[in-house]
């Protein structure tokens, strides 16, 4: 498949005309192992019999889920790549493997620098104030205390948490789901990344915030080498990406310019 669109973008990014790869996925397979997923029944006797049967060959108590099956692609500096596919098609799993957070079963992922997932949620604690979460989240992403102090006001302003009163000093569990999502995105987007991966972050928040976050993603893309975006909103993919990977059942179905792939995808999913 030819991709003229990406060529145009990368030509400006690399002055000598040669495209510099930032992420290379070489026949990546990812398998999840789920404890206690097999056997059907969740009772104690079922668990016991699973353990007893384990001696025969492959352990049966563990169920394998083959989430990504042999995906290969090369991403270049300056590209914004959208990942589409129905639920459970392995998009998020693939991102985690690129970030080096999930080990591959077979194949390799080569990256330039440290790709980071735009996901700071797990480090935040609902019992702490928004203020302390900004600091904790920033530290968890590897920012220094000075960097956080410098950007603190930007983060709070961007999230818009304080627009309706002094909410940043309240525990995060008291926030509405929209407010929480906005603060999380604001914290996560505060750092500059070499390779940035965004997983469904734009689905939350009101229209005003969505526009602001798309704006911020375009900024991040300018600073970052490469941006990956997982989204179910074809509009935000169209607005931000120039190349799209379509995953289905863990396999790479299509890889090409946004319009071409989205058209095929919309035809397939009947939209």
């Amino acid at each position: 498949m030819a991709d003229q669109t990406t060529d145009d973008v990368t030509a400006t990014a690399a002055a000598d005309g040669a495209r510099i790869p930032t992420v290379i996925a070489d026949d990546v397979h990812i398998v999840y192992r789920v404890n206690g997923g097999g056997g059907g029944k969740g009772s104690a006797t079922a668990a016991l019999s699973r353990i007893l049967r384990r001696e025969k060959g492959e352990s049966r108590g563990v169920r394998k889920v083959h989430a990504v099956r042999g995906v290969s692609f090369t991403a270049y500096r300056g590209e914004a790549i959208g990942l589409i596919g129905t639920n459970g098609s392995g998009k998020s799993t693939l991102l985690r493997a690129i970030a080096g957070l999930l080990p591959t079963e077979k194949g390799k992922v080569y990256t330039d620098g440290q790709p980071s997932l735009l996901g700071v949620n797990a480090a935040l604690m609902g019992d702490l104030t928004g203020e302390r979460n900004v600091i904790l989240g920033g530290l968890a992403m590897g920012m220094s205390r000075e960097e956080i102090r410098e950007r603190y006001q930007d983060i709070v302003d961007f999230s818009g948490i304080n627009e309706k009163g002094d909410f940043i000093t309240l525990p995060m569990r008291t926030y509405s789901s929209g407010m929480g999502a906005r603060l999380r995105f604001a914290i996560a987007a505060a750092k500059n990344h070499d390779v940035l991966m965004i997983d469904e972050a734009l689905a939350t928040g009101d229209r005003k915030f969505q526009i602001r976050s798309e704006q911020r993603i375009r900024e991040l893309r300018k600073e970052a080498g490469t941006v990956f975006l997982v989204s179910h909103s074809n509009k935000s993919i169209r607005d931000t990406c120039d190349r799209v990977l379509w995953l289905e059942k863990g396999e790479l179905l299509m890889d090409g310019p946004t319009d071409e792939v989205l058209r095929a995808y919309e035809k397939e999913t009947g939209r």
Partner: protein
Amino acid sequence: MTAPPSADAGLSPAELAAKYGLSVSGARPGLAEYVRQLWGRRHFILAFSQAKLTAQYSQAKLGQLWQVATPLLNAAVYFLIFGLILNAGRGMEKDIYIPFLVTGVFVFMFTQTSVMSGVRAISGNLGLVRALHFPRASLPISFALQQLQQLMFSMIVLFVIAAAFGSYPSLSWLLILPALALQFVFNVGLSLIMARLGSKTPDLAQLMPFVMRTWMYGSGVMFSIPIMLQDKPAWIADVLMYNPAAIYMDLIRFALIDGYGSEYLPSHVWLAGLLWAVLAGAAGFVYFWKAEERYGRG
């Protein structure tokens, strides 16, 4: 599939990666590099432990007051059962026995809670491990640090109890600092080991309370080992007294309590404490680092 640019056409992915200096994602760093990364995350480790400590009681009406109230209630319960009802002191004066008992309980709980949180450090924080990059040892270390801060509150209670039973603050109390430092290193090492085991076998979280309780009863938390085992062969008492939990308890009792002199302690007790700390700390760290790239799978 995207065709590579002409200059790079025909290169295999591995060759292409080598040409542009790309590295394999999620590979384990060397030991020295790992220590350096961990040092770079020291602010996160500290902030995470403090956040966990604060979050613990933030829903309670009395709030952070529980930091002090919990150890106080603990001490009261043990005093009631072992001091008054069972009279486990066996001839030890009350002025010595009560601080002896409370010190034992607090110091042992420091190791116990560190181990227990170590078991769940990785398996209970998979979301964090799967979302962000940081040396995974940050988590068990951070949890051990949380327990150390918790112990500081217990120490306030302990000092008050010691003073109430006639052991007044003196220079020897300063010995508590090196003793706690050694115990902290030991705890970190142990929880690193438990974190790796627990990441592979989460079932350990169910099993460990029983192991820890056995360890507690065998370490002389509520009784003095040499007094209790007077008529048994000497080697049993020796083995029990040189176990790390007993060593650290005795070091702190020795520093804190006026009437608890060196006659209660095994010989070379500081050396034993140091060896346990270095052994557990180094072994735990290397053992944990060996599996660094595998944490977070399934």
